[in-house]
């Protein structure tokens, strides 16, 4: 017999678990099923127009240059974006952690503020900051004698341009996490290193880095997953252009699904995206386990 306390416990968890089952688990599983059909706008009108097509959606995706382009772009976003964002976060955290910094709480909040702003609104804003002819960024470049850059108009610079915006927006988040960890590093360690004659760089690599290595890894896993899910940035800033250079996997899924209503094929994209994120997470977890083993 179930005890009174256990009944109460089920009462507490049931609403949440039911919601998770209906609105999360079932859709995720059906996504896999949907990806095996050619569900499209005709099927939306009449289910009789839907065919079970096996793995055809996957086959077609793998031979679709735009899908590969989206994959390539997404990988580029992550490969460039993760180190850039984490580097910026770490640099800001290390500087802010210096004892001689005044008004630290103010800076902390200020650096973090872009993170909570509305992505769409700030993306619109950066669209203008990055404007080729009237943008503030090109004005800054040209006033120090550098050539103006066609940031969002040139396929070679569109990804870096969006990344500048993304780094501005998110670096404060990981900075706070690094800062919290750095504050747990005892000052004695730095003192000892200083007495041993270590310069700032040596202190960073010998004291700071080892202290934050586990966090660094965790943060990079989360960041990769985050960069794999870029959507609103290209949607607002470039609509995937120029020359599809900023079409990300999620953007591709959105267009396939909700612009052209090929829900079958879009589900296949979603599933591939999931596999990618899952694989990256597994690799990083394995690495972290090995690193963790080294430390003990």
């Amino acid at each position: 017999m179930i005890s009174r306390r256990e009944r109460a416990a089920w009462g507490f968890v049931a609403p949440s678990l039911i919601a998770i089952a209906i609105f999360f688990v079932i859709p995720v599983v059906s996504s896999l099923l949907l990806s095996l059909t050619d569900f499209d706008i005709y099927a939306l009108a009449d289910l009789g127009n839907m065919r079970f097509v096996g793995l055809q959606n996957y086959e077609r995706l793998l031979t679709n240059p735009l899908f590969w382009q989206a994959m390539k772009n997404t990988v580029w976003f992550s490969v460039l974006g993760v180190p850039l964002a984490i580097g910026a976060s770490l640099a800001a955290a290390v500087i802010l952690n210096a004892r001689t910094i005044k008004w630290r709480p103010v800076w902390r909040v200020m650096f973090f503020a872009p993170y909570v702003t509305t992505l769409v609104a700030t993306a619109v804003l950066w669209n203008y900051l990055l404007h080729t002819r009237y943008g503030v960024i090109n004005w800054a470049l040209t006033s120090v004698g550098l050539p103006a850059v066609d940031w969002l108009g040139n396929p070679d610079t569109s990804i870096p341009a969006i990344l500048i915006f993304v780094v501005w927006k998110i670096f404060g988040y990981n900075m706070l996490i690094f800062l919290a960890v750095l504050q747990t590093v005892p000052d004695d360690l730095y003192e000892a290193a200083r007495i041993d004659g270590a310069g700032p760089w040596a202190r960073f690599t010998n004291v700071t880095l080892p202290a934050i290595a586990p966090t660094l890894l965790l943060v990079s896993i989360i960041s990769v997953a985050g960069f794999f899910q870029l959507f609103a940035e290209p949607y607002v800033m470039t609509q995937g252009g120029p020359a599809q250079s900023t079409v990300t996997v999620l953007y591709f899924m959105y267009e396939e699904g909700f612009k052209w209503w090929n829900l079958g094929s879009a589900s296949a994209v979603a599933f591939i995206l999931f596999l990618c994120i899952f694989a990256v997470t597994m690799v990083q977890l394995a690495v972290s386990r090995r690193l963790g083993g080294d430390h003990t």
Partner: protein
Amino acid sequence: MIDRRAALGLMAGASLAGCGRNDGITRLSFWAMGNEATHAPQILPAFEAANPGIKVVVQPLPWTAAHQKLLTAYAGASLPDVSQIGNTWVAELAAIGALSPTPAFADDLLQDQFPAVLETNRIGGRAMATPWYVDTRLIYLRTDLLARAGFDAMPVTWAEWKRAMHAVKRVAGDGNFAILLPVNEFEQLLTFGLQGDQPLLRDEDTRGNFSSESFRAALAFYKSLFDEGLAPLASAAQISNVWTEFARGYFSFYFSGPWTIGDMKSRLPAEIQPHWTTAGVPGTTGPGASAPGGSSLAVFRSSPHQDAAWKLVRYLSDPAVQARFNVITGDLPARPSAWAAPKVASDPYVTAFNGQLARARAVPKVPEWERIVTEMQIVAERMVRGEFTVQQAGAEIDRRADRLLEKRRWMIEQGRAA
């Protein structure tokens, strides 16, 4: 300080939340795009005055999002009662059963129409939407720069036109170009493609025909305009203000439809006003063709207000109303009899459209068309960026079109599609 009007607007917005009021008034939701959405409210009061039980609520959509929004609304069962739709979307919306065909009592609306335009609205022999205004694209040009370059009229063949473009670019000076062909818009290349004698799709419109000799010629011409520095490699979003740039001479030829007449008149500075005009599209050997465009009025099957909706369509199709709307928007009336109205007939910018409409050539009526031309433009943009040769681009467009048409081939085999 936000004034009282703004505060009222805010409150009005909030109170709209309680839609579906039951006060005996039929609220017709009417979606319109761009220019038409801006100006439709000016002609609707007369309709509401004549039909006291009907109130029309206009919702504006940006053109770039309109097609997608209609499909989304169909999927979400939130279609309006009536909408302006692009002519080329009729087949698709009809295929999914969203449109209400013209009922018998409104048959007379199909009289007094341009046959080629009406044909694009007919699917399987039934009119699925009613032409509202017609348009076709032609060239807007800077006559002063053309004259300074030594041309006193718009050339009518591609070869001559290109010569003119080179001359204009020299006159306009460094950093400027001759023509604006936004690389994210398919209409320009499509117009070039229509100059050829071969159809764009083959085998009962179930396969692409973009490797045909005539389409390859169009691709080559399109590409050469970029290669020779006559057109900037830019998308529409990068030209922050078309009218300012046109006035500055950043480009002197601009592809657009009749809606731009109004914009040119209101947005160009006074000193440029005498120096622009409209002209027909050049062809390979003489005056060229272009696609019969325009918008139709669609009544959706899901609308519970069919009678009121058709009343609105009837009102907007009235030649007198269309003539008035032409004066406000520059839209060319769908009813030929409206063209006789003095204010329409006397507009010098409109005359070029007369000739261009006579040379209109229909595009294939398949639901996938919108997507095919989108893919065509994606490939074309890559071609001008140097990723494809003309030959490869034609083959690539064919490949993509064939893939998009696979379902259509299956549905035809199954007898599920017309």
